[in-house]
């Protein structure tokens, strides 16, 4: 962290806001209709335009500024000597936040080309080579268009035409992206990147999203201009009715007590095949009291009926490998060699001698699991019948021949 001490310090004690929303003072006060509905991004148009001219000079913060509005009795409190003044170096070391008006952004630059190198070394393993991966985190890039860049509104957010909301679809403040990469990335070594690397990775993401060209160099001098190209820069609303504790809220119900209007229908319920998705609910409840947890073995419609006898393996519909294919097991598991999940033979080797392995693995297949073979979860496969699951598990424990 010490290398960060040479980054620009703060002068915030003397600074006054340039964001229209803040200088208007409306949002912090009572919710006016203006403040309620004005787009935050609209406010930022003004901010970005003047931010560069007002960028704080590098260097240590000025000496203490008298607080015009401080509580008159504060200094007299009997505990007022507790704690100690922070040194300038200490403030500089921890004051890492970057605001939408670029307050706190260190001077520097980084190229798309450099960003690609950093990305491949530190980012791609989780986020994919093109920021598109959905394996570990939600995709960063995708779902935005040139037309979105023109309007500042992402059309896919309106019509739902992109299957997931990517970072670039939601991003309305470029400062946010810079700040977050700087403070929290890479995942397993946060705060380890240089200022140049943070600029470069930010530039690379913007390039992947077609916001800046391949030869672009992002810097503190042009970042406000790039903000004006963000596809969703006009897509965010500071919604004060759910920010202020005395806000009015947006949805109204009435306290009708009798013969109230209802549609009298069940609009949604958990399908039978999802009953095992959260494991054995009987084991997630106390064993005493007026109610118990439901067991997993039968669908809701069959609870209370006599328990079906386990089917003999002979009754299974297909040979094991065909069954594995038909049940979509082979999308993640190979007979030999790791794919997304461990191979059938590796599983067999690990559990072959374990007591109760068959029941354990049947539960894991049908109820899902995570952690036995790394972080990638095994989704529950309750759609595979218990008899089929048992047959598959026996085949796996027998060496998956």
């Amino acid at each position: 962290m010490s290398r960060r001490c040479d980054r620009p310090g703060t002068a915030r004690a003397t600074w006054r806001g340039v964001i229209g929303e803040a200088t208007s003072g409306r949002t912090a006060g009572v919710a006016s209709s203006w403040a309620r509905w004005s787009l935050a991004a609209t406010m930022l148009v003004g901010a970005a335009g003047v931010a560069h001219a007002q960028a704080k000079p590098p260097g240590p913060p000025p000496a203490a500024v008298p607080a015009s509005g401080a509580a008159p009795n504060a200094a007299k409190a009997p505990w007022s000597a507790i704690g100690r003044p922070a040194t300038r170096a200490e403030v500089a070391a921890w004051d890492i936040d970057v605001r939408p008006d670029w307050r706190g952004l260190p001077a520097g630059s980084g190229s798309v080309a450099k960003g690609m190198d950093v990305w491949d070394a530190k980012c791609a393993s989780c986020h994919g080579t093109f920021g598109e991966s959905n394996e570990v985190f939600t995709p960063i890039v995708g779902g935005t268009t040139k037309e979105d860049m023109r309007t500042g509104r992402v059309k896919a957010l309106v019509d739902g035409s992109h299957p997931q909301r990517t970072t670039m679809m939601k991003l309305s403040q470029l400062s946010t992206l810079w700040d977050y990469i700087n403070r929290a990335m890479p995942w397993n070594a946060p705060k380890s990147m240089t200022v140049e690397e943070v600029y470069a990775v930010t530039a690379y993401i913007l390039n992947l999203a077609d916001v800046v060209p391949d030869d672009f160099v992002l810097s503190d001098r042009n970042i406000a201009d790039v903000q004006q190209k963000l596809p969703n820069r006009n897509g965010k609303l500071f919604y004060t009715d759910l920010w202020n504790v005395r806000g009015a809220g947006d949805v109204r119900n009435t306290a009708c007590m009798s013969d109230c209007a209802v549609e009298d229908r069940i609009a949604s319920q958990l399908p039978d095949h999802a009953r095992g998705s959260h494991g054995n609910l009987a084991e997630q409840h106390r064993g005493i009291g007026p109610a118990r947890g439901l067991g997993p073995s039968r669908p809701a419609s069959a609870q209370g009926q006599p328990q079906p006898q386990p089917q003999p393996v002979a009754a299974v519909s297909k040979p094991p490998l065909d069954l594995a294919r038909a049940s979509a097991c082979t999308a993640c598991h190979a007979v030999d060699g790791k794919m997304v999940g461990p191979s059938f033979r590796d599983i067999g080797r690990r559990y072959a001698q374990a007591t109760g392995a068959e029941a354990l693995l049947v539960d894991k297949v049908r109820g899902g699991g995570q952690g036995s073979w790394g972080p990638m979860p095994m989704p529950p496969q309750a759609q595979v019948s218990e008899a089929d699951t048992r047959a598959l598990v026996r085949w796996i424990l027998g060496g998956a021949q």
Partner: protein
Amino acid sequence: MNAPIRMPGRIQPAPEDFLSGEQVVSARKARRGFMAKALAFGAGAAAAGSARPAGNSAAAGTGAAPAAEGDPMILAPRPWTTSLGQPVAVRGYGLPSQHEKGLQRRESPGLTRVSAASVSFCPLQGLFGIITPTGLHFERHHQGWHDIDPSQHRLMVMGLVREPRVFTMDDLMRLPAVSRMHFIECGANTGMEWGNVAVPTVQYTHGMLSCGEFTGVPLATLLDLCGVDRKAARYVLAEGADGSSMTRTVAVDRAMDDVLVAWAMNGEMLRPENGYPLRLVVPGVQGVSWVKYLRRIEVGDSPYFTKDEVLHYVDLMPDGTHRAFTSIQECKSVITTPSGGQVLLDRGYHNVTGLAWSGRGKIRRVDVSFDGGRNWRTARLEQPVLPKCLTRFNVDWTWDGSPAVLQSRAIDDTGYVQPRINQLRAVRGTRSIYHNNAIQSWRVAASGEVSNVQAL
């Protein structure tokens, strides 16, 4: 549950479905005669805790009608009545009974892909009163949790203050402390159910909710001590010391009101999963703002638009805009028993119980419906009823064995009435993820099974 109507209030054994195959065989053998049955009960009790606590307890503790002589649990001396128990301090820090193992914090499979950036849900289905047992408090980590050495922890207060200052834990714990009870709810609680029913039990529908007694110093005390510029200050940034260095903007009127810089929960220091040694407590506001491992408070004059104010914890509206800074957890309630994934063992009397809360103040009233929202009865509120705190409610219900849909509806002291899911959707659509405070419906089938449904 195709048994005939039973006496009200009597507890029946769980269906055989809950027992392992071995136990079913054992129970069937036991039916052959009373002596055999008594032996089976004894065996079951001896095995309890080793295999399936729920099943064993059901078999051993709620035996079928005893024979003429009476209940073997009474007639036959129990091991704990006839032997020496364990001495003091076997467990220097106490643990729950071995029979309570079913109640655990759990992840929702498939919800997140990385368990260091995930959530574990609080088992509300098994809790009593309003205080969440500390070890069952829900977890949400953004980049894993740490167990920080408190002697190395520092808090810095800077920005629009007369003098930026640094506090050690020694310093903070010398300041005038307060203790207050508040709920904490993740903004994404019930978020999986915006579009349709997705999860089976109240643990997963509502378990990103906990409540505790927090001890710390009011943030206002610290801000005044540092000489906050009251005229210029509009927002406060809170930042954590963990790898994610989580940041959230807090309104200055909240910061100068009831926000705490807390080191303790439920009489002990915070647990590491909950931010040891220091976290922000922002009553009524979503949990993401209760920054853990709190290292820095910056006073500013404009909102910070942090990652969790721009990319997450934003509510997607039908017109494609995102609402940001939707922080207040509005009035909400849920019935915890009976609730989804349970089965009622008996017809007759049931004490229906649940929780209500509001980020805007106190709970004024809770109504419960047994017919899907057509008719409502007012529940009893248990004391204490505190602002921005869980409130426990109870209401009597005699179940006649016919299907029912149970709902609870809370009203807070602003007069706001908890909305129905279709009322929420009419304004916010179905894609929001966050801030779903809809009335929850639990359907009770004739079999006694309770399931999660959305009743309109």
